[in-house]
């Protein structure tokens, strides 16, 4: 990847994002009382200023993409090879799915059990070379954290609907 392609991509994104903010997001999701006389003091003013700056930065990025010397590739790009038969995008999707399942599991299974499952799932997703140790840690780490936060820090850790811990 070169600075040119990166700035081109970011510039287009920021310019479109600025337009999205000005034309849709701010008018729809930012509310101002009707009796605000001075625009500078309105709740809308600051978001509009930021949207304008986003546009300026977007244009700046686009302009910098076409400056001389911008098409030289970065020297420090990722050079570590992936493991054989590796499917990085699939692993990213799987990690995303684990996060979604954590959000789903926290109120239902409770934090401790969800964390145990998430720990084990992540360790195997990362192809750990120590599966037994990973399983032991998957059980011990959430329990220790539960003990600290629930009994020392006094945090009401979600217990879930099934198995409740003391």
């Amino acid at each position: 990847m070169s600075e040119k392609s990166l700035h081109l991509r970011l510039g287009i994104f920021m310019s479109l994002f600025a337009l999205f903010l000005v034309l849709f997001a701010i008018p729809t999701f930012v509310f101002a009382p009707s009796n605000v006389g001075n625009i500078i003091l309105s709740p809308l003013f600051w978001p509009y200023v930021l949207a304008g700056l986003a546009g300026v930065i977007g244009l700046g990025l686009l302009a910098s993409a076409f400056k001389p010397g911008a098409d030289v590739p970065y020297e420090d790009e990722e050079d570590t090879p992936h493991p054989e038969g590796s499917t990085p995008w699939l692993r990213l999707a799987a990690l995303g799915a684990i996060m979604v399942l954590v959000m789903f599991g926290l109120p239902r299974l409770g934090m401790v059990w969800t964390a145990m499952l998430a720990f084990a799932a992540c360790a195997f997703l990362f192809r750990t070379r120590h599966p037994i140790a990973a399983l032991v840690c998957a059980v011990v780490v959430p329990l220790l954290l539960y003990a600290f936060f629930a009994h020392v820090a006094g945090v009401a850790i979600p217990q879930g609907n099934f198995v409740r811990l003391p």
Partner: protein
Amino acid sequence: MSLMDSLAAGLSLVGNIEAFFMLFCGLVIGVIGGAIPGLSATMAVALTLPFTFSMAPINGILLLLGVYKGGIFGGSIPAILIKTPGTPASSATILDGHPMAERGEAGRALGMALYASCTADAVSNLALILFAGWLASFALNFGPPEFFALILFSLTIIAGVSGESLLRGALSALAGLLLATVGLDLVYGTNRFTFGDPNMMGGLNFIAVLIGLFAIPEIIAMAWNPVAHLGRTRALGKTKCTLADYLGSFKSIIRGSMIGVFLGSIPGIGAAPSAFLSYSEARRTSKNKANFGKGEIEGVAASEAGNNGVAGATLIPLLALGVPGDVITAIIIGAFMVHGLQPGPMMFILNVDIIYGLFIGLIVSSVFLLVVGSVAIRGFKFVADVPKRILMPAVLVLCIYGVFAVNNNIFDVGVMFVMGWVGYIMMRNRIPAAPFLIAFILGPLLEDNFRQSMLMSGSDPLILFRGPITWFFWLLTAITVFAITRSTLRKRVPLS
């Protein structure tokens, strides 16, 4: 209150085993966190933060400061032994530290890194004690226009120096400012980007955002390539750093410490630029200039002094002005907030006991660092052997517990995950995360001071340029933008 009264008040807070034990634990955690590549001092501080909620404010803050200082030194260990900086600030240490390790002089390089770090840390703490109070009393004269100009300057400088490109840094800062607008309007109380969700009315939780930005992307990066962290650890070797080595590099250590103090006290710059500047100054002035980059011990001393010299100085703007000096102090500000403390000039009046307690703790931390660092150098083998593919799931679980504990709210865990993906996308696109976080913290302050200024002046923008203090910050902002733009343009001109 006289100096002696203030010192006595501070001593009454920290004069117990618990406070020093927390500081010591912090240093141990920090050195280990900094020594594990991919974990970093920033992540170590962020992950320790939730454990401080149940502690007395002074103990919690000392624990975090210990992690900070330990982490900055700890980063040099993998930089020297496996050519992977534990923290970005240790990147300069690789230049001479790793060639020394390849020659079988890792023990000597690490010894010098430790002594230079402790010396610079002590100098930096001294600067903090001398200047923070003075700056705070000066800052009592600041009104909203002055604070607006100061915060704008801080954001400009962090956007400019924390990455490779001013524009990408500005993009990051802007995203942080935009995210900070989520919640109820500061003056009218109307909804801004809350999407009708009551969870968002108070704004996004700061700790969820910071842990999401600094811890989760590393876990996602591990999913992308689980073997990227594997490296070969060098042996310590038999040579050790001698007094002659230390004295031979003393000038560079003191110069590096001063550079660290100066750059650290400017809000937003942080340790990495300081380490590189200190290194390049040492190379420029050294008699052994030709050896730099090939394993020169003075190079290790200079870069370590540069990055540790920042550690105390970044607390100067934090304590005196309420503006974080770098991303780690931005996290530490979270600990102050959680305990109901507001860093800034008023803290020197209202919480002078905490301020002096911190000063005492920081002085002791330099001595503790020497002890912890000496042990850590020998124990690195064990730290390096911690399987990262088990460590990262543990970090994930710790993040979930820690973020939940802030408000007992599962929504915050979701915010952390989303911010994690945002952070990962930023990392892949070479957008620095530090301006995002600092802008997110300073955003409400910036807007609040702007609106207060407008209220004071009847919406006359000239109030933002009302006196010498605002002129000074505007001038600094202009110089920063000019200097960064010029250096960017120069870098792009191809060499003929």
